[in-house]
């Protein structure tokens, strides 16, 4: 089981192919194709690369453009260019400042997006923080979810703490059908830009976060429309449109919110 042979580096700086195997560093600065599964300590793509097999590596840095057709197992993934992965992604920290697309589930320690990330699967992590755009077709599960920007999901967002600051104008509507957790806070990004403030007024973009069900122990929402909000302590902020609010301990509703029905549930 012990690998006695020292591993070797593989560099492509013009155009070339790398075959499957174990390497130390894999660097592609021109255009490269990796023919099979690779195991290595570092992958660096600054040109264009296509991985036909699995990638198992400690670090991966993609500042060019890369595509991987299979699973990726990684301790630290950094994307500042564009990366698309067809298989599952497992591992440690994922940091996106470019564009990242996956066709399968993501199961990692932390996800940090300051660019754009799109996945058809679901995202599972300890911490997810978004400062750009995140779209997850099957939802997300984490302990701490913080987002400032655009969120779009088609499944459940399940997190201990959810904090979403949405600014609908520049990205379009954010939509998460179901949110569940301990504390949920949804607020609107206060735009200091006078132009976009006027724009918001003129087109009456009052609510720009949409959901169907929001359930948490402590819920506080602003500028949000949802059919049902349930919780122990619920605070409905300005310009919300809610069909039904159910609470057990405490409820506060802002005068400018539009709430059709409020019910107190007796324990």
């Amino acid at each position, binding site marked *: 089981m012990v690998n006695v042979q020292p591993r070797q580096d593989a560099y492509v700086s013009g155009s070339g192919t790398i075959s499957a195997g174990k390497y130390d560093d894999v660097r592609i600065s021109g255009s490269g194709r990796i023919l099979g599964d690779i195991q290595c300590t570092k992958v660096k793509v600054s040109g264009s690369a296509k991985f036909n097999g699995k990638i198992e590596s400690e670090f991966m840095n993609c500042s060019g453009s890369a595509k991987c057709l299979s699973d990726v197992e990684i301790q630290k993934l950094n994307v500042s260019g564009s990366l698309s992965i067809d298989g599952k992604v497992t591992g440690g920290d994922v940091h996106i400042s470019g564009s990242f697309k996956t066709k399968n589930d993501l199961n990692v320690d932390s996800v940090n997006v300051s660019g754009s990330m799109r996945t058809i699967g679901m995202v599972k992590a300890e911490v997810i923080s978004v400062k750009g755009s995140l779209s997850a077709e099957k939802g997300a599960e984490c302990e701490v979810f913080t987002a400032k920007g655009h969120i779009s999901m088609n499944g459940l967002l*399940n997190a201990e703490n959810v904090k979403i600051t949405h600014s609908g104008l520049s990205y379009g509507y954010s939509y998460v059908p179901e949110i569940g957790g301990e504390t949920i806070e949804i607020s609107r990004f206060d735009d200091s830009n006078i132009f976009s403030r006027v724009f918001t007024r003129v087109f009456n973009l009052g609510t720009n976060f949409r959901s169907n069900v929001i359930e948490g*122990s402590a819920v506080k929402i602003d500028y949000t429309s949802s059919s049902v909000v349930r919780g122990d302590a619920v605070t409905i902020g300005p310009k919300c449109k809610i069909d039904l609010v159910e609470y057990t301990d405490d409820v506060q509703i802002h005068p400018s919110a539009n709430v059709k029905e409020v019910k107190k*549930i007796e324990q």
Partner: protein
Amino acid sequence: MSEELISKKDLLQLTGISYGQLYRWKRKNIIPEDWFMKKSSFTGQETFFPKGKILERIEKIMELKDDQSLDDIARVFSISKENIAEFQNVTLSLDEIPKQVLQIYQSLLPNSKLEQLNTVQLCSLLFVNDWLLKGSVTIEEVKQFLLLVETHKTQIKLEDTVVIYIRKFGVGTWIIGKQNETFVDQKDAILIHVKLVNYLNSFTS
């Protein structure tokens, strides 16, 4: 099919747990995903649970959660759940595996995580301990067996698997095959020939 259902709202009212707790348990997989059943109701969609199962599970969690971490509880449920599906009478947990065998396993595969062992692997570790105590095989031979199990861990099924160890001219070989479909030359020295299930039951009974 006509299982009694309970809505999420009624469940929380009945058990006194909060939404935060329920979602936390779901995240940790202590409550299986497929117990969350979406049904349309007059307020749009509502979530329902199989009443008997969920009440029993929550009672158990409440019992355990004071002195165990959620991750430990999750492990208890994930291992016992797998077993209940296949054998009613067998439950295995990591605590039942003797330390010396775990040490052999870890020295062999230092990168593996013990929490991620599946039932087949847990079984194989129990067997290994037994064989080593009986002295029928050596540690080196056991390592070969563990490696074989490791490589095929997802393919091996508990129900119909036999484990055979033969030694011929001093050279030993492990065979893991399907019960009733694996044949060995009787002239060879067969040191071990066991059905995984029978053997497992003999441990627990």
